[in-house]
C-alpha cells in the first residue's frame, strides 16, 4: 500500500504561539491510523492543519498533492472529510439537510442512494430525518456528523475525539460502525482519541504526540502491548 | 437568537480589550492634559469653540464606550439621552433661572434614571434587537420633544435659545475660553471616573458580562444589575454632555438630536476604538472635523467623500485608533529594551 498522507516538518501557530514543532508522520491508503497523546499535545491542531484551519508551515502531501496553501474547501473537494471535535453538525438544519450538505460538492446522481445507505448504517437517523440536528442526543449527533462526512465519499476521514462526551455503549457502537466503514467502503481514517485503549483496539497504526512532536510510532498492537508507552503516555 | 450567538463566537462584536489597556499611561495623560490647558493661549475664539464642541462629543462617545466597550451592549439611541440632557439644562436655565453649573448634575441624574429604566426591558434583548430598540428610542425622542403637551417648556419645533454664561469671579477671559476650561475640567473628571469605573469591581463585572454572559452569571455576577447599571451610567454621562452642548451651542431644537447624531457618536466610537477610552477624543475629532474636510473637497459630494474617508480609515485600522496606539506602545517598548 502506498502512502496516502505524508506529513513532513509540520509547524502550526495560533497567533504568536507555536503549537506543532516539526511533526512528521505518514498514513497508508485504506488504513485506520490513530493519533494519541495527552490534552494539549497537538492532536487536534494536526487535524486542523491538514484542513488549513490553522496557520502552518512544512509539507502535507495527500496522494501526491500538496495541501498547504489550499483553502479548506479546496482540500475538502480533494476527498478529505473532517469531523471536528464538538461534531460540527448544522444544528439549525434537519438531519436530511445535513446529509445533503455533506455531499454538496458532489456532482453525481447517487446522492439520494448514499443517503439511504447512511440510514442503513445509522437507522436512528432515518427515524429523525426531519428533525433539527440540534435536537438530537449527543450520540445521535456524532453519528450524524460521521454520516455527513461519509456523504462526501471521502478517501480520507479525519475524526476528532469521536467518543467525547458519549456513553460507553454508544461509543462501542460508533466504533464498530467506523471499523465497518473502513473495511467495507475503503475509507482511510485518521482518528484522534483520548480513549487510547479503544482507539488502539480498532486502528492498525498509531502515533503518539507530545508537545507538538511525534514521540512514538508503530502498529497499534505493538503500541498497545508496550507497557512503558501505555504507562507514560497513554495513562491506562 | 442563537444565530446571533454563533456570529458572536466567530467575530466578537467587541474585541476584548485587556483590562490594563483601557487608558493611557500617566506620563502621556499628563502631557495631553497640559496641552489641552495650553490651547486657549494660542488659538482664536472660533477654534476654542470648536474644541469645546470636540470635548463635548468626546464625553458622549466615552459614554457610549462605557456601554459598548465596557458591558458589550450596543446602542444607536445615544442621541435620545443627549437630547434629554440638553433640554434639561436648557429648560432649567431658561424657565427656572437655575445656574448652568447646577443644571448639569440634574441632567446627568435624570438621564441616569431614564437610562437605567430603559435598560430594564433592553435586558431581554441583545445584538440586533437591542440596536433596533435603541434606534426606536432615537427616532422617538425628537417627536416627543415636539409634542404639543410639552411645548410650553420645550418651545416645540422652534426650540429654545439658551444664554451663554460669562466667566465667574470677574476672570478676564472670554465666554468661549471660560466655557472651554469648564468643559475641559468636566471632561477630565468624567474620564478619570470612567477609567476607575472600568478598573473597579463594577467594571470587571461588566467586562465579564461583555466577554461571556453565561460564564459571568455562573461566576455569580448579577448580570441584570450590571447591564442596566451600564446603561444608566452611559446615559447619565451622555446627559451631561448634552447639557454642556446646549450651553455651548446656546440653542436646543428637536432637529438637533435626530438619529444622525446617534450615528455620528457611534462612528466616533468605532474610529476611536471600542473599549479604549482615550480613543473617544480621536473619534470625536473624526466626527467634528472630517465632515469639514469632506466639504472642502467637494460640496455636492461631501457625503460621498465623508463615506470614502470613513472606509479608508476602517480599512487601515479596523480596530480604530486603539490599534495605532497599541502599535506605538509596542514600538516604544522595543526601543526601551
Amino acid at each position: 500500500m502506498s502512502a496516502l498522507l505524508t506529513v513532513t516538518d509540520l509547524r502550526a501557530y495560533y497567533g504568536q504561539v507555536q503549537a506543532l514543532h516539526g511533526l512528521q508522520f505518514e498514513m497508508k491508503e485504506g488504513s485506520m491510523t490513530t493519533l494519541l497523546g495527552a490534552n494539549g499535545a497537538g492532536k487536534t491542531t494536526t487535524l486542523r492543519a491538514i484542513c488549513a484551519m490553522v496557520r502552518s508551515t512544512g509539507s502535507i502531501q495527500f496522494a501526491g498533492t500538496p495541501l498547504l496553501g489550499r483553502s479548506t474547501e479546496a482540500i475538502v473537494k480533494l476527498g478529505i472529510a473532517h469531523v471536528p471535535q464538538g461534531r460540527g453538525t448544522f444544528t439549525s438544519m434537519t438531519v436530511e439537510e445535513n446529509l445533503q450538505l455533506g455531499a454538496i460538492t458532489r456532482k453525481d446522481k447517487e446522492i439520494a442512494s448514499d443517503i439511504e445507505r447512511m440510514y442503513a448504517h445509522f437507522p436512528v437517523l432515518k427515524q429523525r430525518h426531519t428533525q433539527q440536528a440540534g435536537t438530537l442526543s449527543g450520540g445521535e449527533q456524532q453519528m450524524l456528523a460521521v454520516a455527513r462526512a461519509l456523504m462526501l465519499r471521502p478517501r480520507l476521514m479525519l475524526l476528532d475525539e469521536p467518543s467525547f462526551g458519549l456513553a460507553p455503549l454508544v461509543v462501542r457502537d460508533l466504533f464498530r460502525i467506523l471499523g465497518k466503514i473502513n473495511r467495507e467502503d475503503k475509507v482511510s481514517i485518521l482518528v484522534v482519541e483520548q480513549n487510547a485503549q479503544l482507539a488502539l483496539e480498532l486502528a492498525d497504526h498509531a502515533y503518539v504526540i507530545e508537545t507538538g512532536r511525534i514521540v512514538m510510532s508503530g502498529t497499534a498492537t505493538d503500541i498497545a502491548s508496550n507497557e512503558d508507552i501505555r504507562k507514560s503516555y497513554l495513562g491506562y | 437568537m442563537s444565530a446571533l450567538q454563533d456570529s458572536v463566537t466567530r467575530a466578537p462584536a467587541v474585541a476584548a480589550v485587556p483590562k490594563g489597556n483601557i487608558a493611557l499611561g500617566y506620563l502621556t495623560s499628563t502631557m495631553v492634559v497640559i496641552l489641552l490647558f495650553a490651547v486657549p493661549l494660542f488659538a482664536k475664539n472660533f477654534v476654542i469653540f470648536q474644541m469645546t464642541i470636540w470635548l463635548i462629543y468626546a464625553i458622549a462617545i466615552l459614554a457610549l464606550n462605557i456601554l459598548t466597550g465596557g458591558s458589550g451592549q450596543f446602542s444607536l439611541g445615544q442621541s435620545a439621552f443627549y437630547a434629554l440632557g440638553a433640554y434639561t439644562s436648557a429648560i432649567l436655565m431658561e424657565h427656572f433661572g437655575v445656574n448652568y453649573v447646577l443644571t448639569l448634575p440634574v441632567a446627568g441624574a435624570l438621564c441616569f434614571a431614564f437610562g437605567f429604566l430603559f435598560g430594564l426591558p433592553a435586558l431581554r434583548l441583545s445584538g440586533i434587537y437591542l440596536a433596533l430598540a435603541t434606534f426606536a428610542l432615537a427616532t422617538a425622542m425628537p417627536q416627543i420633544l415636539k409634542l404639543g403637551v410639552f411645548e410650553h417648556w420645550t418651545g416645540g419645533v422652534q426650540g429654545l435659545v439658551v444664554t451663554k454664561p460669562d466667566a465667574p469671579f470677574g476672570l478676564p477671559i472670554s465666554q468661549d475660553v471660560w466655557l472651554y476650561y469648564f468643559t475641559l475640567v468636566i471632561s477630565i473628571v468624567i474620564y478619570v471616573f470612567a477609567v476607575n469605573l472600568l478598573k473597579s469591581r463594577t467594571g470587571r463585572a461588566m467586562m465579564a458580562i461583555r466577554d461571556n454572559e453565561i460564564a459571568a452569571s455562573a461566576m455569580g455576577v448579577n448580570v441584570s444589575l450590571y447591564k442596566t447599571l451600564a446603561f444608566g451610567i452611559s446615559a447619565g454621562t451622555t446627559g451631561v454632555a448634552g447639557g454642556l452642548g446646549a450651553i455651548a451651542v446656546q440653542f436646543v431644537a428637536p432637529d438637533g438630536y435626530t438619529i444622525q447624531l446617534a450615528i455620528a457618536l457611534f462612528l466616533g466610537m468605532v474610529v476611536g476604538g471600542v473599549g479604549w477610552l482615550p480613543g473617544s477624543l480621536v473619534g470625536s475629532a473624526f466626527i467634528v472635523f472630517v465632515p469639514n474636510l469632506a466639504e472642502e473637497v467637494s460640496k455636492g459630494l461631501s457625503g460621498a467623500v465623508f463615506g470614502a474617508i470613513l472606509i479608508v480609515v476602517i480599512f487601515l485600522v479596523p480596530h480604530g485608533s486603539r490599534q495605532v496606539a497599541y502599535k506605538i506602545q509596542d514600538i516604544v517598548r522595543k526601543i526601551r529594551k
Partner: protein
Amino acid sequence: MELFTNQVLAGIATGAIYACMALAVVMIYQAIDQLNFAQGEMAMFSTFLAWQMIQWGVPFWGAFALTLVISFAGGVMIERLLFKPLANAPILTHVAGFIALFAILNSVAGLTWDFTIKQFPSPFGSAPFLGSQLISTHQAGMIAVTLVLLLALYFFFQFTRIGLAMRAAAAQPESARLVGINTSWMVALGWGMASAIGAIAGMMIAPVVFLEPNMMGGVLIYGFAAAVLGGLSSPFGAVIGGFLVGIFENLAGTYIPGVGNELKLPIALALIITVLVVKPNGLFGRSVVKRV
C-alpha cells in the same frame, strides 16, 4: 367601522411596501448575519438606474431585468471590494462600513439625479383595484410580486443545493467550509441576491412614494421592524411582519387618542419591542437550541 376597514386596507397597501423591503433585509441577514444599513440606499440607487434606462427609452420590463442583473453584480462587487477585506474586523466596524456606503450612495444619487421627486412608472397601472379606491392595481400588483418573490425564495432556500449551501454558510461558516462550501462566495452571492431583491422592492415602492434619493430612509426602518417582528430567519415571517406593521401603524394613528398620530412610528416600534421581549426570535423565527 368603515374607517376601520379603510385603515386596515390602507395598512395592507402600505404594509406591502414594508414586506417587500423586509424580504431584502431577511435575505442579507441570511447571508451575513447582520442588518445592512445601506440596503435602502442600494435599492434606491438601483431604482434610479432603472428610471434612467426608462428615460433613455428602454421598455419597462427590459429596464427591470437589466436593473436586476446590474444590482446583482453591484451587490457582489460591493461585498468583494468593501466587505471581504473587512472579514476579520469586528462587527461594529462592519456597521461603520454600512454607514459609509449609505453616505456615498445617497450623495452620489443626489448629485447625479438631484433631489426633486420623480415619477416611476408602474407596470400594473394605478386604477382602483376591484373597485376599491383604497388599493390601487399597482399596490395589488406589488403584493402579488412580494408573494411570488417569497415563494421563489422559499423554493430557492429549501429545494436547491445552492440555497442549502447559503443557509449552511450563514449559520455555521466553519462547518460549512468543512463540507467544501466556499463560504466567502456564498456571502458575496447573498449580497448579490439581497441587492437584486432590494432593486425589485425599490422599483415596486417608487411608484407609490415617488423616486428621490431619500425615498428609502423611512421605508428601511419599517423594513427592519417588519423583518425583526416576523423573525429575521424567516422570509415568510418578514412578509407577515410587513403587513402587520402597516396595519398596526395605521390603527395606532387612528385610534390612540392624543398622541397616536404624532407618535405612530415610536408606538409601532415600542409594540415590536414588546413582542420581542416576549418572543425573542420574532413571531415566526426559528428558535434554535442553544449550546453553551
